[in-house]
């Protein structure tokens, strides 16, 4: 058993947040000076092999965050609601999978939610300064007062996590209980888990604990057991222990090789720089041309030619019998 995180101290000094604004390593649409020292990286380890699907984590998440999910309808499956929402930051996804080697039905239950990527696609895509921040302990958090509800984070996310609220039109997702972690507590879901399928600690501790679990699983015949800490997004601060780590996608579509979409990288990278340059060049070319070539002016001669063509320049028309019809030449 992983040693549980002790209950909080009642000493008022213990309530002082242990990290904040000064510990930001990334801030959306802003350049910031990274802090001199990085906090110890934290991580949540979700051991899918120990999950019993009780949804205590889902309930604890709603409770801690003062959220109420809409009462839905029974779709004939265990998933409830059917997808993450602006209220459901974490969701148990149930998959019935037939192992082709053993012909056994395996019930894969994955707790879905924000992975707290080391290289967060949501933050990269966000256009609003400070709406998404990343603390040096690895937590990626949304700052609702800065969110404009554009939904770019949804496009940036490789895991399809953020959801826009229909009420306040800002984006919501798991905060990794940054408010609890700030005072030395673990996330609410971890606290509620009855089987220690969710554990929380430093990233190193979690990797060590995962190794122990994977060895145990391998000794029981799960030879592909492994840790899901995808390097395509620089690693994550929410990791899974999977019995079939060679095929993450069987766990309700967990991406095999998540990374920020190259389309998003192109949009936020070369398009931005080339675009600004192109518009700048177009404007500068205009100014330069005007300075060099001067204005294109109508001359006196042009006016005289037009008068000659149109006729009746000096004498008021009509000079003779009206031509064919009204429009005179």
């Amino acid at each position, binding site marked *: 058993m992983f040693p549980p995180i002790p209950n909080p101290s009642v000493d008022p000094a213990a309530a002082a947040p242990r990290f904040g604004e000064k510990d930001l390593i990334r801030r959306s649409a802003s350049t910031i000076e990274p802090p001199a020292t990085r906090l110890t990286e934290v991580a949540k380890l979700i051991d899918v092999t120990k999950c019993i699907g009780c949804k205590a984590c889902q309930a604890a998440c709603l409770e801690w965050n003062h959220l109420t999910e809409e009462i839905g309808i029974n779709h004939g499956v265990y998933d409830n609601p059917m997808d993450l929402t602006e209220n459901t930051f974490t969701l148990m996804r149930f998959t019935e999978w037939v192992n082709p080697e053993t012909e056994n039905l395996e019930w894969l239950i994955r707790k879905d939610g924000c992975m707290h990527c080391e290289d967060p696609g949501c933050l990269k895509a966000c256009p609003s*300064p400070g709406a998404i921040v990343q603390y040096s302990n690895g937590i990626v958090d949304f700052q609702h007062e800065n969110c404009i509800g554009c939904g770019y984070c949804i496009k940036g996310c490789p895991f399809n996590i953020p959801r826009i609220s229909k009420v306040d039109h800002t984006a919501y997702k798991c905060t990794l209980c940054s408010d609890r972690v700030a005072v030395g507590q673990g996330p609410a879901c971890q606290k509620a888990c009855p089987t220690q399928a969710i554990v929380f600690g430093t990233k190193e501790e979690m990797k060590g604990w995962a190794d122990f679990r994977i060895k145990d699983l391998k000794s029981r015949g799960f030879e592909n057991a492994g840790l899901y800490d995808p390097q395509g997004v620089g690693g994550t601060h929410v990791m899974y222990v999977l019995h079939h780590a060679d095929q993450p996608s069987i766990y309700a579509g967990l991406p095999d090789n998540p990374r920020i979409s190259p389309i998003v990288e192109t949009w936020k990278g070369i398009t931005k720089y080339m675009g600004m340059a192109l518009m700048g060049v177009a404007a500068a070319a205009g100014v330069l041309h005007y300075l060099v070539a001067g204005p294109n002016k109508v001359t006196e001669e042009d006016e005289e030619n037009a008068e000659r063509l149109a006729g009746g320049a000096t004498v008021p028309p009509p000079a003779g019998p009206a031509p064919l019809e009204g*429009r005179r030449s």
Partner: protein
Amino acid sequence: MTVHDPKAPVPEPADDVQSGDAVHPGHPVTVDRYTVGARINHWITAVSLVLLALSGLALFTPKLFFLTGLFGGGQMTRILHPWIGVVLFCSFALLFVRFWRANLPKRVDAEWLAHSSDLLAGREEKMPEVGKYNAGQKFVFWSMSALILVLITSGIVMWDQYFYPFTTIEQKRIAILVHSATAIFAICVWIVHVYAAIWVKGTFSAMTRGNVTGGWAWRHHRKWLRELVHKPAKSGTGTPAE
């Protein structure tokens, strides 16, 4: 037809003379170029295009995010931008109906383009005579038409508030990339359009009071002027020009 200018070429079927175009002899000659409807239509399009560029650039690059202040903040910018887009699209669609026929490519456009360096160097006398629009103006017209079509289509795909369920996230990613790249080209075309109006003196009055001087028409759109002089306008109202 009267023959004030015997050297004038025989006018060919002039589909670029539009209803409302008329020439008024006098000193100077004035030529009606845009009806009041066309001008209002143009300025609604112009204002929405500028507002779209400002609000779009605000969300395009963090360096210009401050522009959201013009629209009442980030949330308001996010709300307004697509609606202004709808206004632009409808307004431009009307402009398209008004102007497309006069913007059809002609043989002379190739020749005009071949001489475009003469134009930029100020040797306009070497340019071929063109009708109501020259090849550059036609380029602006057709490229804007195409770009706006792409912009409204990709814009709807990324208008999450109303259209989120209809496309996949991958499609939305493509839409955003296409939308931003297309918008950059549209802004460049807009720069060309505005610069041309600034550079070619006497042009603004066409879109403000609706007319230009005869000299302007002679210098820049001589074929159109000849057509107007030699051919009664197509509109059946038959109001005598004065």
